[in-house]
């Protein structure tokens, strides 16, 4: 999906994944989350990815494509793109592979500090956050509310785990590294999917349902 081809900002929410080359971690996360959302019939959430030092126009790594194919996802049309301030400004939620990427994003657009998290950090926060949404809210407002709620519980639920929050870069390594990356991302992405889907239907679900999203 090419950023320039996107429609003007709308009621749709936008989630942006960021890693270094935009060919391993972030495309995997992008395609997985989009597939997760499709399976839950969630609409109104766009998912993108970009790289801080992107290998522009390159396709995703072969190992990534293979891993995606295991879940029946075809990532052949993916092309890497470089992170730019506009993307960050447009995104309602920026999820990064590691704390370094988070720093890079926030240094590019300082205002984004309240909606930029590492993937695992956001999953951790989503488990305890309590967003308050109403039925009339657009998907975008709902996601923004989820992000606000998650930002508010930073450090309250527990200190950051430091670099243990990072997703390792498998680029240039063996296939096992890619699989490890996929496994590291699986649970956090599930939790994030549930949080995004749940916040979309906040009024119809009991809070207890949200408290244990990883088992969903």
């Amino acid at each position, binding site marked *: 999906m090419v950023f320039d081809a996107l429609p003007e900002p709308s009621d749709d929410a936008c989630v942006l994944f960021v890693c270094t080359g935009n060919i391993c971690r972030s495309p995997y996360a992008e395609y997985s989350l989009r597939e997760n959302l499709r399976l839950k019939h969630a609409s109104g959430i766009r998912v993108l990815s970009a790289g801080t030092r992107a290998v522009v126009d390159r396709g995703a790594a072969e190992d990534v494509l293979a891993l995606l194919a295991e879940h029946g996802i075809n990532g052949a049309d993916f092309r890497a793109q470089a992170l730019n301030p506009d993307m960050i400004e447009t995104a309602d939620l920026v999820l990064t592979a590691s*704390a370094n990427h*988070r*720093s*890079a994003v*926030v*240094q590019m657009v*300082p*205002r984004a*500090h*309240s909606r*930029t998290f590492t993937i695992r*950090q956001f999953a951790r*926060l989503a488990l305890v956050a309590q967003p308050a949404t109403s039925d009339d809210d657009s998907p975008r407002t709902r996601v923004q509310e989820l992000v606000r709620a998650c*930002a*508010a519980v*930073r*450090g*309250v*639920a*527990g*200190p*950051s785990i*430091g670099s243990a929050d990072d997703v390792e870069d498998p680029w240039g390594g063996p296939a096992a590294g890619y699989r490890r990356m996929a496994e590291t991302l699986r649970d956090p992405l599930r939790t994030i999917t549930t949080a995004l889907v749940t916040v979309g239907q906040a009024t119809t679900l009991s809070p207890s349902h949200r408290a244990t999203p990883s088992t969903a």
Partner: protein
Amino acid sequence: MEQRQFWALLHRRWMTVVAFGLLGVLIGSAYVLTATPEYTADAELFVSAVGADNTSDLVQGSNFSQQQARNYAVVATREIVLDPVIEALGLETTSKALARRVSASVPLNTSLISISVTDTSPARAAATANAIATSLTNTIPDLVSKRSDGSSPVRLGTIQTATPPTIPTAPKPRMVIALALILGLAFGVGFIVVREMVGAKVRTPDQIKQLMGLTVLGSVAFDRATPNRPLISHSSGPSVRAEEFREIRTNLRFLHAGQSHKVFVVTSSIPGEGKSTTSANLAAALAATGTSVCLVEADLRKPSLGTYLDLEGGIGLTTVLAKDASLDDCLQPWGPDNLRVLLSGQIPPNPSELLGSPQLKKLFNTLRNRFDVLIIDCPPLIPVTDAAIVASIFGGAILVVGCGKVELRELRRSVDALSVSGSPVLGVIANMAPVTMKGRYQRIYAQADEGRRGPKRPSKKSLAKEGATR
């Protein structure tokens, strides 16, 4: 070191002293077990003057023999006596060496000569003693001047022959072990005193008060769980720590009294005393009263607040100073009470210069005017001067003292460092303090409380009350 301090030290470190004592006993016992035992055999001779005819002669003879006994006792350890002994017994030694193992004495007011010989063999000791007695008896008549009839004026008679002793005289186990114990204990006391002099750690808040004359704003008891849960807002269960910070918060009201916008510069002597967690907890405790609080991380060398607070530390103080972003963009909200946090931002190459720059002063003043309370977390004082620079801008600093962590002389140095820059220590927060009696009671109460009501934040009403007194 005063006597009271000495007893306190002894009370604290008695285990070390006892350990040294036991070590002494161990060494003593080992010596007793491994040393070659020595045996002592005694023979006694009687000295008499010959030819006393009447009572006055007898008295004179008695005096004479007592005097002579003392002389002969000395002769007993000389080669004239010992050489024949060595020859007779076939000993492989010299008279000088043998003399060291022989002692001859005259019991007070007697004319007896007691000859003692020590040897590793009991039989040889006895034989030697007897041989010396015989040799002395034979030698003396040749030495003294003869009477006119050629007879000797004195006679020596053996009154007690030496028998091989059964019990060794050395080493004496009880003596040796008792001595070793005393020496060990003495060494132990010396050791802890020297160690205390060289690397005395600050132990208790009282010590800070008494030795340094500093005001203690409050103490935070040592808690094993702190490294995992550094911030009070996420400690579940009975929160004694939260109560401790509320107490400190109350005491803070008396600092900078009369200033409507207060700035507290928080620092410590060395890294690891808990100044960043203390700053964060203090800021959170203050924010909970409804006061507008800003926590600033002025540690531009080893920032850590971002990790504790789970915030992105890539933007902050240095970002604003470099004009890469506006102050508003870099002030991150944290927690439920609208606390604002300005983290360090990217680590600059020249932290001290930056902290002393007029731009930073201006930034601090902007923040001071915007918030009721500004808490500035600075790097430790001993490695770098940063904290002293910032403290001098705001007329003093709050020192976090890690009990059992920082040495007394380090604390003195950091207080000196502050006073050199013209800023006093406004107060001390004793971190990792030993749990006091009071603390224990609080813990019990908190548990009872917790059981009744479950975890709960202070009510709006009580907060408003506390806020009003500020």
